[in-house]
């Protein structure tokens, strides 16, 4: 048979699905795309999830406080962080596609058990804090709807545990995803609040910096919540698990860049929105209710409820994903049995970490006073920001390792930008410690 006939036969097989076959074929194509635009559609998954997760409870709290306290002053930083985030995510996605392995596995294989233990400790602290902050977010959202945290958080935590353990979380996740659409109120509200667009544009392109501990604290928190360590690990595992091949990698890369751009565009709008509303009225964000008021130009007195729905959806999404992903990375690193299809007795460490993070989150979510919610969320993001360079160094080392990446290593420009990110974040963290911690222990620093 000639190849032309062969191609014709293949085309015929594709073009002539039976009446029943058509729907089935579409589902197959979406699940396991091999050709055409469907690859792109299916590859959209991890990028959008990652973009959305940036706007979890911690993200909203951080961007709102930044906008309320400094107006548009920090917008230029969002531009830089977007570049860094796109860079880092692309490296992780590439590692996932080339090796088919997760980050913790690669660190163990290339650096040995001590280094992976160190990296996993950093990841546990960063992710553990973020996981806890999601339960605080659930509590705050329910609080805005008039439900006391003691009555609201434990049942939600139990629901999450049960859904994940039963394996039915994937089926209900779309409900929480739909709730986060409430956050599209931010760009609309920002426009209705008539911000000074000229001012916003000027601050987006012209950097400014203040040598103040509160300013640097806000800076590090914004880095920590935008370039979350967990997101990079998650993205790599997701690309590996999807078995994205290098021949299809261009779609994944495009998706990563898209996700980063749109995710940070939403973040920028949160800052502009809060800058145009809270900052101009000199309202500091100390309570979740304060942050909600930024949506008033769009929805008026319903602002509280719209904000609560979005916060609830985003927090519920992340509250399931974070404990699961953390437990997965840790047990994978140490070669322990893991997976949602295992029984508790078969994989005790996996279920212990997963359950432990949910329990700690629930306890903190219940006992934390309303007035401390925003402060705690900010501190968690700062911890993420400080620990980020630890993981970044591993990521950069691995992506330049010829034994791991072969011909797909970083180019020099990529490396310079990546190291610049590490140095900048590291320097900021040190600066923050100098300006925050030292005065607190009685040492004066003059900057």
């Amino acid at each position, binding site marked *: 048979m000639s190849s032309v006939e062969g191609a014709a036969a*293949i085309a015929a097989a594709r073009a002539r699905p039976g009446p*029943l076959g058509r729907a089935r074929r579409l589902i197959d194509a979406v699940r396991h795309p091999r050709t055409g635009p469907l690859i792109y559609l299916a590859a959209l998954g991890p990028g959008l999830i990652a973009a959305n997760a940036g706007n979890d409870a911690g993200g909203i709290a951080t961007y709102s406080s930044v906008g309320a306290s400094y107006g548009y002053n920090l917008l230029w930083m969002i531009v830089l962080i977007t570049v860094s985030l796109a860079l880092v995510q692309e490296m992780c996605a590439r590692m996932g596609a080339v090796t*088919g392995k997760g980050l913790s*596995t690669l660190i163990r294989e290339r650096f040995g058990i001590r280094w992976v233990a160190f990296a996993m400790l950093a990841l546990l602290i960063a992710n553990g804090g973020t996981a806890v902050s999601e339960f605080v977010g659930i509590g705050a959202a329910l609080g805005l709807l008039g439900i006391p945290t003691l009555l609201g958080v434990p049942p939600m935590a139990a629901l999450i545990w049960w859904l994940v353990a039963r394996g039915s979380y994937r089926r209900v996740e779309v409900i929480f995803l739909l709730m986060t659409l409430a956050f599209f109120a931010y760009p609309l509200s920002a426009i209705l609040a008539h911000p000074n667009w000229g001012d916003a544009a000027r601050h987006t392109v012209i950097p400014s910096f203040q040598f103040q501990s509160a300013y640097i604290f806000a800076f590090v928190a914004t880095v920590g919540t935008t370039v979350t360590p967990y997101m990079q690990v998650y993205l790599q595992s997701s690309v*590996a*698990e999807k078995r994205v*091949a290098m021949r299809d990698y261009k779609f994944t890369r495009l998706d990563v860049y898209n996700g980063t751009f749109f995710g940070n565009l939403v973040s920028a709008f949160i800052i502009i929105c809060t800058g145009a509303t809270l900052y101009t009225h000199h309202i500091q964000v100390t309570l979740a209710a304060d942050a909600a008021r930024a949506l008033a130009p769009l929805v008026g007195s319903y602002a509280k409820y719209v904000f609560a729905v979005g916060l609830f959806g985003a927090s519920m999404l992340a509250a399931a994903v974070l404990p699961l992903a953390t437990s997965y990375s840790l047990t994978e690193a*140490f070669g322990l049995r893991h997976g949602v299809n295992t029984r508790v007795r078969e994989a005790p460490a996996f279920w212990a970490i997963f359950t432990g993070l949910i329990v700690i989150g629930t306890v903190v979510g219940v006992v934390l006073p309303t007035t401390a919610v925003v402060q705690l969320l900010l501190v968690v993001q700062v911890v993420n920001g400080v620990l980020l360079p630890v993981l970044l160094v591993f990521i950069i080392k691995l992506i330049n390792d010829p034994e791991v990446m072969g011909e797909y290593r970083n180019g020099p420009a990529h490396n310079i930008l990546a190291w610049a990110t590490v140095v900048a974040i590291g320097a900021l963290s040190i600066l923050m410690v100098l300006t925050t911690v030292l005065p607190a222990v009685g040492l004066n620093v003059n900057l």
Partner: protein
Amino acid sequence: MLRLSNLLNAKVHDEGSHGVGRIGDLLARQAQGQPPEVTGLLILRSGRVWFCETTQVTWPENGTTGRIVVNGEPAPFERRPGELLLAHDLLDRQVIDLTRVTTARVNDIFLAREPDGWRVDAVDLATAALSRRLLPAALRPEGSEQHTLSWQDFEILASDTSGGWVYPEHSRLSRLHPADIARIADLLPSPQVLELIESLPDRVAADALEEMDEHLKGGIFADLSAERAARILDLMAPNAAADVLADLPTPVAQRILQDLPSGEAADIHALLTYAKNTAGGIMTTSYVIAPKDLPVREAAEFLRPQLVKPDWVYYVYVVDDMTTRDLVGVFTLRDLLLADQKLTIEDIMSTGLRTARPDSPAEKAAQTMSEYNLMALPVTDEAGRLLGIVAVDDALSVILPTQLRRRVPRVFS
């Protein structure tokens, strides 16, 4: 028995008791059917890697404690194929556990003392081995959990060894059941699945690929060379081969089709014209036929050549004419064995067959088979000519959703 982790980083001395460096790694040579034998040491000294043969090394009397002495000068190190760096290539890596049919991570390596040196004896999979390497003795949790895997029970993944390891011609993997190979493939990263398939003989690879998830299978075929892909497809059931080709990007499928023998290509060509979820889409063209006027005593001789290709044979379909293949009846191989030698096939066949049209839904064909307890269902065209058969295993996979079969659940995507 000695643990590799005890040797790594241990001090090495020369004959004059001067320190010459620390042990960076152990080199072991691959041997056919034998555990690898330790052939040398890698010594780290002031940031450089040196190599010395085990014949140059004097081990401490009691095996573990005491001074390791190197005689003569270490040489610069160079990698050679067939030589394994135990710490770099095996420790902390994933291996295939052949006994439990899964993957496992190596937490430590046991070396056994032999008269002429050391051999790799087993790998330690116990978590306790990790805490030995990580924590000081006082902080280690109690408990003496044992979980070792001896040399003959695991397989190394060669891509982890940067060319140091070479798959033996008859690897232990190729002796596993194809469904077990598919299960292991589900657990491995994609590049290593490809490497696994490439290391297997065509026949085993074809059987294992038939068991694999569509997405994984498609990815492997897209990465294999066209000649190898064609050789493997040729050994697969025609319907399975057609499914693979229908899922591949057209240029890739075209290249593979060119390399297929023309008979096989024509069969696949015919099968490709049917949509996947129809009887035609799940049928196979390997079946056995006999003309109705064939004498029973000649039947065995007549059928023998046809019995080679199909995976299993239960029914023989009876046709008017061997070229037009108008279906008139069926008999089983048992009918044939029990039949009177004086009769012809027409006397022993059953008529009134259940059949399906190629465009009828696959589900309906499966239902018919279940209702009438059939091991296979013939598929015919309007004129009653035999086009193929739906075999019971293919019907089963229509009825049983994939989730109920072997499947690794997704967490991150």
